[in-house]
């Protein structure tokens, strides 16, 4: 029998605001014809929606005296853990939207004027001449964020699958919309799409097996069924492994990471910035909730997998990043290594991870958005003085400290935060994660993680040395130009301030993270 659900709409408000704004954005696309007006309208709408939802979520956080509310039994909760992730995702979305709207000095935006036109075709030339603009990226961003927020808050495996697709599908499209190197962009989108669809199919089959074993797909129902049948786990274990594989794909852990360097390099850099921060946060949020509210009785069966994947991810991510010559690709492999550090927190399933993982993702996400924002500002310049695409070869970054000391200094700060140097946010984040792992008895994993961090520091510092201590090659003086757009600079300075603040004065944020360290079962 179907029973009418008992919904608590107030608890859904942040997600409803975001998704509704996405729908209005589609309407704006249809009504407003002038590209400049449309762009301004979309940017305003996106910022109002994300910041409005952020305020609503913050009010919910402040007014919730206990752990939170169950918005719909067995389906959706708004506990402090969920609210913390939602606030984080909304901040990333607002910063991402600003980057989406930024342009070069010559007025060129990051997206292709017409996604359906083949690269180099007469249609594309015509679209360029008429100055068409793909402002659909803003509604796509909102839909993606709405999906991610649902992803972080749902307590049902099937709803998690739907949310997974809701946030993945817009990302596949956005990856394919780069203005320059369009062939590369479309190719990266195809790889991202195929591997993403593959992983969600694997996840779904895991859900089917869990449903077969438990006769329900809610986290709490599966947990209850596991506890009720300790001897018979024949369906639970393969189901749980397939579900985790699906999530680890999105997290970008080795051996499920192959999409991430391609997608990061191919996507328009503003999309990379948003995707790198937000996708990882959403995946980590779902992993925390699944592990700690549904699958923890299977610790003995699952911990070998988490340990192996964590170690391999840290080692492969670090080693491969060492040999990269493209800066976006280098940061992509560094993000793979960070996925390994996130997994370290799950060693032994210590409840400390409930606070450590959100804090780590916040520090990582802010530094990532900042770093990619800096990348959008460093541009190639042709002999005739026209400014071209982004200068992503590492060699082109030589002497950036002379060209723009502030921008290079910001980049250096983000790199130090990635490396986990004290007085940056990354240090506190790594410390929290490693403390959680030691609490769970995972000290061998922490040992590997510390060694991997030390090795990773090498390629971060190498880039800093390249920016500040290497002279610009004689014939390259005019080959690189530092671009300027107020939106991008605002994003860079916000992330710089946040990274320093979280590194020097982490008490407030750590208190919030520890308040967030509670999960409602959802019943």
């Amino acid at each position, binding site marked *: 029998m179907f029973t009418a659900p008992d919904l608590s709409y107030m608890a859904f408000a942040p997600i409803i605001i975001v998704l509704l704004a996405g729908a209005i954005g589609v309407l704006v696309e249809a009504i407003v014809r002038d590209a400049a007006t449309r762009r301004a309208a979309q940017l305003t709408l996106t910022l109002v929606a994300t910041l409005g939802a952020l305020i609503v979520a913050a009010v919910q956080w402040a007014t919730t005296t206990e752990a939170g509310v169950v918005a719909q039994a067995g389906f959706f909760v708004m506990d402090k853990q969920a609210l913390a992730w939602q606030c984080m995702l909304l901040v990333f979305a607002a910063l991402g939207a600003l980057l989406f709207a930024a342009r070069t000095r010559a007025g060129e935006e990051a997206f292709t004027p017409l996604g359906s036109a083949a690269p180099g075709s007469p249609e594309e030339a015509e679209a360029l001449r008429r100055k068409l603009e793909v402002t659909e990226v803003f509604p796509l961003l909102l839909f993606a964020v709405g999906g991610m927020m649902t992803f972080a808050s749902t307590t049902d495996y099937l709803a998690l699958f739907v949310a997974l*697709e809701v946030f993945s599908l817009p990302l596949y499209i956005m990856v*394919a919309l780069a203005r320059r190197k369009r062939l590369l962009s*479309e*190719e990266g989108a195809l790889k991202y799409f195929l591997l993403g669809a*593959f992983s969600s199919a694997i996840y779904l*089959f895991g859900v*089917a097996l869990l*449903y*077969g074993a438990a006769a329900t797909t809610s986290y709490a129902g599966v947990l209850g069924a596991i506890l009720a049948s300790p001897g018979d786990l024949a369906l639970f274990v393969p189901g749980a492994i397939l579900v985790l594989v699906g999530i680890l794909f999105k997290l970008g852990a080795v051996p499920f990471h192959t999409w991430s360097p391609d997608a990061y390099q191919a996507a328009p850099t503003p999309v990379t910035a948003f995707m790198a921060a937000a996708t990882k946060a959403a995946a980590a949020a779902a992993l925390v909730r699944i592990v700690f509210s549904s699958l923890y009785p299977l610790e003995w069966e699952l911990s070998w997998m988490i340990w192996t994947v964590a170690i391999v991810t840290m080692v492969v991510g670090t080693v491969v990043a060492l040999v990269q010559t493209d800066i976006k690709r280098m940061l992509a492999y560094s993000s793979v290594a960070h996925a390994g550090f996130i997994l370290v927190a799950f060693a032994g399933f210590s409840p400390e991870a409930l606070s450590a993982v959100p804090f780590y993702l916040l520090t990582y996400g802010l530094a990532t958005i900042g770093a990619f924002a800096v990348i959008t500002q460093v541009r190639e310049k042709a002999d005739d003085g026209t400014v071209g695409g982004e200068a992503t070869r590492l060699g082109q970054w030589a002497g950036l400290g002379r060209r723009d000391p502030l921008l290079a200094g910001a980049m250096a700060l983000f790199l130090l935060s990635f490396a986990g140097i004290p007085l940056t946010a990354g240090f506190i984040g790594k410390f929290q994660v490693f403390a959680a792992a030691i609490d769970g008895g995972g000290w061998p994993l922490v040992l590997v993680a510390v060694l991997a961090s030390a090795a990773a520091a090498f390629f971060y510092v190498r880039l800093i040395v390249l920016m500040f201590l290497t002279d610009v090659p004689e014939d390259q003086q005019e080959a690189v130009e530092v671009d300027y757009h107020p939106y991008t600079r605002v994003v860079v300075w916000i992330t710089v301030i946040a990274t320093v603040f979280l590194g020097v004065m982490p008490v407030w944020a750590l208190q919030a993270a520890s308040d967030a360290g509670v999960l409602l079962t959802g019943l």
Partner: protein
Amino acid sequence: MNPIAFVYLATVLFGIGAAAVLLRRNAIIAFMGVELMLNAANLALVAFSRIHGEIDGQVMAFFVMVVAAAEVVVGLAIIIALFRARQTISLDEPAELKG
């Protein structure tokens, strides 16, 4: 007929689909492999639904179908865009992304 047989069939179909994604170099065929995996999951959901004597699993299969349809739209759009640019959809040919 014992519905557990359909679960075994679903597992086999899932394996075939996964093999198609990993082994075939044509983007369309690889994509069809993904669809086969999704439908294998559907079959498993419906079979388990029958075993448990309830309709939840069948309702879930509808959710999956809708999601799969949305995925086809996006996937084919990307594949067609790439085909227009390069006149091929082989996954081996793309060589712009390396390392």
